[in-house]
């Protein structure tokens, strides 16, 4: 079924969009990532103009992560206090990120910076997670029962002032590193045009020492608000949200997210982390190929006049 999108002004197959939304929603429910880093390149691929893909992707992320949050709230695996603190940092960071993005586009080469950011961060995070979770899985197999992950109980984050009790995470740490993580992810997310879940999740696990099960719900909670903010900014400043496109993606996305959450509850934390690591590495590899392989056509078209 072909459908004409009013803002994007292109014709696409409605079932393709529902399917794409479903796949990304599944990832979202399973791993607690918003899926922005997947949906945006996929939309480029089927011919949606890039600015519309970025803005509408954010709108879709709101739906799938909200659906995921509700499922996690029911299972009591959301640390609301942690979520609010991260969000506060995230809003500051993402505003700073938008400024940085505008500065980079004035200098030109913003595409290259974004692409390099993707490859470097996805590569680093993917490799670190894969190594750690494979190790954890091996240890778990040797010693039978699953040992809780080693948390930096007395690491640098625990010596700072402004200590807050995060009951759901079982942590009593300073709010400063939490705010810093939120802000750093916000900056990167705004530059790369994504919610930043794939950076947030490992940061919460490895930097803040939160347990994996709580991390996913909390990350989704934070992403819901952050992408709602981004969607609104895009709609107001550049009119690039295509609601028809969003509805189709959302339809697939919310169903995918529910299936993902159910599936996630059945998998072990180490297995989840290995799967997410592999996914992140796959996207990284695909983007790296674009940088290193000779493009099919050396020339490309971008609507509008650039800088």
């Amino acid at each position, binding site marked *: 079924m072909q459908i004409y999108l009013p803002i994007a002004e292109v014709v696409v197959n409605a079932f393709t969009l529902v399917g794409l939304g479903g796949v990304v929603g599944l990832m979202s429910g399973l791993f607690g990532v918003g899926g922005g880093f997947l949906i945006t390149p996929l939309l480029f691929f089927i011919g949606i103009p890039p600015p519309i893909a970025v803005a509408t992707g954010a709108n879709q992320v709101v*739906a799938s992560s*909200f659906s995921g949050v*509700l499922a996690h709230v029911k299972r009591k695996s959301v640390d609301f206090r942690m979520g609010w603190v991260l969000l506060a940092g995230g809003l500051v960071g993402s505003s700073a990120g938008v400024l940085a993005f505008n500065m980079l586009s004035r200098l030109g080469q913003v*595409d290259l910076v974004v692409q390099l950011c993707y490859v470097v961060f996805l590569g680093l995070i993917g490799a670190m997670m894969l190594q750690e979770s494979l190790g954890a899985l091996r240890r778990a197999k040797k010693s039978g029962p699953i040992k809780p992950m080693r948390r930096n109980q007395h690491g640098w984050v625990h010596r700072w002032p402004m200590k807050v009790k995060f009951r759901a995470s079982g942590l009593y740490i300073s709010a400063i590193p939490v705010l810093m993580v939120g802000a750093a992810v916000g900056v990167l997310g705004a530059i790369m045009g994504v919610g930043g879940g794939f950076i947030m999740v490992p940061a919460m696990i490895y930097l803040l020492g939160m347990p994996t099960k709580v991390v996913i719900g909390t990350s989704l909670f934070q992403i819901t608000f952050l992408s709602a903010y981004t969607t609104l900014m895009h709609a*107001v400043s550049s*009119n690039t949200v295509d609601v028809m496109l969003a509805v189709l993606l959302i339809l697939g996305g919310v169903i995918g997210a529910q299936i993902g959450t159910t599936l996630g509850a059945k998998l072990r934390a180490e297995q989840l982390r290995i799967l997410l690591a592999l996914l992140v590495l796959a996207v990284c590899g695909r983007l790296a190929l674009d940088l290193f392989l000779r493009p099919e056509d050396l020339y490309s*078209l971008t609507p509008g006049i650039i800088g």
Partner: protein
Amino acid sequence: MIGRALILLFALASPLGAQENLAQESGAQETGAARSGEQIVADMSRDDVDITTSFDGSDIIIYGAIKREMPIPETDPLDVIVTVEGPPRPVTVRHKERRFGIWVNTGKVGVAAAPNFYVVATSRPLGRILDSAEDSRYRISVPLAMRAFSGASEVEDVVPYTAALVRLREAQDLYRLDDGAVRLAEQTLFRADIRLPANLMEGLYATRIFLLRDGKVLDTFRAPIEVRKVGLERWLYRLALDQPFLYGLMSLALAVFAGWAASAAFRRFQSR
């Protein structure tokens, strides 16, 4: 030959009378000054295209006759060129080069006005019926459709960039040269079937008809086609532009509602 002419006549029969009224009323359709006593009389199967949600392209028939108050000249044969041109939009053409082992955008050329759609249909191969001076005067052939480079160019040679623009648009079927697509009968009746693609943008599309003999343009005829969104498409488009904040909130509300509905539906499904 006669059979084909009859079909064309049939296509012509009804709207010819209406055409004269339309030209008088709106003044939108104009006929250029004929230099040789041969003039175009033409009409289209439709002068507006509505984009609905299920829009998947549209066919337009442009047809007409040559009006003359003299016998058919026995010089070169007559030819007809029909062009349909979409609204101009700015576009940037960028070029990638290998730097430090990776492919990077290095040069760029901004074209201030390139139509998003341009098709040229001719009665015989374009190169044989149109001389280049007339081509540049009337901007007929595909590479001449774009104009006005924006600002001072930062590259030495813009030709590869404009050639790439044409090549990329041709690959998407947005720019097209259809040699022989205009059917011409008895040097008098002509007809062109133009396919407008599904990926159409809103705006005024310009139709031009050129009458040629011996490489020279004898007469021109212009008429607009209005392409616009209707119904839900129109409503959403206007809302996004006129009330962006409201539109953003609506998009978010939809997203939140869909997220809640799926969650509630699954809970019910699982608790059974």
